[in-house]
């Protein structure tokens, strides 16, 4: 009697590549790979042919040619004699500065609106609902253009601020006046705000094309040192509390440690604010902020704030009612319950959508193009592209930079998320 020890060995047949699920996935992947390679090859071939037909090549050397255009808002020195690459860096910094302030304002606004939307107060929660729904359901571009139009068409020209001798004689007031005790002037050209200056500046140096002001560096170092000392002081206080059960009062010490050294240093160098003043046809002195920046910042903050408010509301609603009730049972007041019990837990739910809102805000800064805000899209992907005609290079570079920016923001925020996330096991 013969026993069959094994199942009959199946020989490999070609049809098994399609019918056998063990091999089918390999077949499909190989086909997809071939198709993908063919597709990429086809694109590359077309690109080479098209470039040849237009007598162009792929060459990034234009980045070191003279740019020849002016940029209104520059965080590092730039003239129209600078290179295209420097223009791109100026644009990138403009993108970053709007994104940075936008994220801060949108977060503050969003947290307030989200918490107030859940308030027991009927009127307040309705107002917040109207705010959130209005901003979420209307395109961002409309808010940007509208705020820019209002800022530049409703405000008065600089000469409306003028107070002439005849007007003083006849007791007339100028048509427009400055805000906040004559310190801020909003004209149809921009917003002029006071700017801190030193009477005895400390000079500076240039590092890789970026000017560095020694006074600012020293102030920052002083501040960092003071904050470190203050934290050590708080730690000492906590230790004392753990040992003796009584916490020494240290807040005023910390405040003094943080504020005094920097204040003393600045006073020694003659710190003062320079106020904008009407000279000639325009305001001089202080810092002039273009309306394109202000409008973009306002619109982005309000728009993203509405989305963040929704994320905050969803996060708070995700925390079970028992947590609030337990806090009330312990006798904690509603405000502190929100701050100490609900929000820290809700934070874990809120952070992931918050990350994507920050990313959206950063990407949405490109809409500044509609109001001629020269960010990275406006310089590298706008004027530089049009002047040099190098579409392929400019677009590739620009998309690469945005991609890296997004990856950096999401990795930083993910690290933060990992830090505050509920630690289990």
């Amino acid at each position, binding site marked *: 009697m013969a026993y069959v020890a094994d199942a009959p060995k199946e020989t490999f047949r070609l049809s098994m590549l*399609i*019918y056998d699920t063990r091999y*089918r*996935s390999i077949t*499909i*992947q190989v*086909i*997809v*790979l071939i198709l*993908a390679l063919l597709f990429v090859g086809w*694109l590359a071939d*077309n*690109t080479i*042919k*098209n*470039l040849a*037909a237009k007598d162009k090549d792929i060459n990034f050397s234009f980045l070191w040619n003279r740019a020849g255009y002016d940029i209104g808002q520059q965080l590092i020195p730039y003239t129209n004699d600078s290179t295209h690459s420097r223009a791109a860096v100026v644009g990138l910094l403009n993108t970053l500065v709007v994104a940075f302030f936008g994220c801060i304002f949108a977060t503050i606004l969003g947290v307030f609106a989200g918490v107030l939307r859940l*308030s*027991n*107060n*009927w*009127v*307040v929660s309705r*107002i917040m609902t109207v705010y959130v*729904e*209005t901003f*979420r*359901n*209307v*395109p*961002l*571009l*409309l808010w940007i*253009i*509208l705020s820019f*139009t*209002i800022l530049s*068409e409703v405000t008065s020209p600089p000469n409306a601020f003028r107070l002439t001798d005849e007007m003083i004689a006849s007791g007339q007031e100028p048509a427009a006046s400055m805000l906040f005790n004559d310190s801020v002037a909003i004209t149809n050209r921009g917003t002029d705000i006071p700017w801190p200056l030193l009477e005895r500046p400390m000079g500076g140096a240039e590092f890789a094309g970026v000017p560095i002001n020694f006074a600012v560096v020293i102030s920052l170092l002083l501040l960092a040192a003071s904050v470190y000392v203050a934290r050590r002081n708080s730690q000492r206080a906590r230790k004392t509390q753990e040992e003796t059960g009584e916490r020494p009062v240290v807040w005023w010490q910390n405040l003094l440690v943080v504020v005094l050294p920097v204040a003393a240093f600045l006073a020694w160098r003659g710190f003062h604010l320079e106020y904008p003043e009407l000279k000639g046809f325009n305001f001089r002195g202080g810092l002039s902020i273009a309306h394109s920046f202000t409008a973009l910042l306002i619109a982005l903050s309000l728009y993203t704030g509405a989305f963040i408010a929704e994320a905050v509301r969803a996060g708070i609603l995700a925390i079970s009612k028992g947590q609030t009730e337990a806090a009330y049972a312990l006798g904690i007041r509603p405000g502190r319950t929100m701050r100490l019990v609900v929000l820290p837990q809700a934070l874990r739910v809120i952070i992931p959508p918050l990350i994507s809102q920050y*990313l959206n805000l950063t*990407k*949405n800064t*490109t*809409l500044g*193009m*509609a109001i001629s805000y020269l960010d990275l*899209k406006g310089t590298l*992907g706008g004027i530089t*592209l049009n002047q040099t005609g190098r*579409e*392929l290079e400019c*677009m590739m570079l*620009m*998309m690469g930079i*945005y*991609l890296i920016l*997004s*990856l950096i923001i999401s990795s930083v925020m993910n690290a933060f998320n990992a830090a505050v996330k509920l630690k289990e096991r």
Partner: protein
Amino acid sequence: METATPIFVRNEMLGPKEPPTSQRGVVKWFRENLFSTPLNSILTVIGVAFVYLVLKTVVPWVWNGVWTASSLSECRQIIAETLGPDSHAACWAMIAERWKQFIYGFYPMDSYWRPTLAFALMFVALAPVLYFGIRHINVRMVGAVGVLLMIALWGLGTDGAHIGLALVLMAALTAVAWVAPKKLVWLTLLYPAIGFFLLWGGSVWGPVGALLGFVILAFVWLGLQRQVGVVVAGGIALITAAVWWLSVQTHVTGALHAAMPIGLPPVRSDQFGGFLLAFVIGVTAIAASLPIGILLALGRRSDMFLIKTMSVGFIEFVRGVPLITMLFVASLLLQYFLPPQTNFDLILRVIILVTLFSAAYIAEVIRGGLAALPRGQYEAADALGLDYWQAQRLIIMPQALKISIPGIVSSFIGLFKDTTLVALVGLADPLQGITKIARADINWKGIYWEPYLFVGLIFFACCFSMSRYSMYLERKLKRDHR
């Protein structure tokens, strides 16, 4: 023995007493919702004052608006005469004069009935999808759309023949919705071709030929999928259809057109504008991005390394760059990547790129839905002996899509709002393109609130109703009781 009879025994219960005045009705509501704490009272007062101030400015401004004037200065003059020199009021005359341009862009005036009919048919085509062939809702919807369409066509001054045509069509569709509501799905399937034909015009045989390609695709796929599996059959069907579209179709449709020249006057793409453009781009991209997004999400969760890598790469790349750069790729770079001398429409290029953009976001939303499904659902499907596609179709996707409805709809809303960005590559969207043209008119120079309010209000209406529909859908599909 004498029994003591009590003097008084209550025979009936006392009715419940009303709560004290401070604990009921309006007073209670006010105390709880407006004046529960001192801080709340202050907030209430501030809130009411704020609302009052806003309404005090806005309501008279809107209400006293001037509807008939030919320029902004005339408008201001009328306002100054009727309300006094320093008063402000809206100048709706600008909207009254230009609303057709806001809606239709530069579409030929005598053909306004075509986009209007296409818009109405869109709702009829959506009805079976949105309301699952529930008869009474479908009939009501189709009927209401028909009545509104008649009013709109009459208001636009369309000629009698076209109104009659539309009337017969809508009556027939209402009848279909009444007799066999599920059959309306056929209109949904045919709608892309119908919409294209109505909007762009030209020979009727072009869209018919394109549709035939899909019919071929469906037949080949159905015939082969039993034998060779879903994916391979899909590939073969796609290749057959591609052969039809790329090499056979033009000959067949050319011959048919020569034999029977039926068609509408063609409209060039650069005549599209305003909300017509926003809807064409938005609706097409929404409809196309959902299936692509589902495939990308499945690809991202696939066991096949290559497919997974490609899906992840595509999704992360698209999500990392702003939409504007994608639009500029459409307008500047696509010409490099395609064979020399191919030159197709900017609107089509923009639609393709917007679709890809939105598909990546939808893929991430659906991936979230897939991840939220308990592992047991996948295992149950395997235990029932379902293959991959059957499991996806019958078990996984219905649940995953249900979970991701809010996310999908908010992606759609975002996409629809983002159609305004096409202005930046030179198309005439309602916000930038048309409003800019209107404001550049010497008669209306200096007007800003009115056009932006008008455009914003329409966008708000569309997006808000979309989000309300998603809430309805969520409630309707909710099976658990949380």
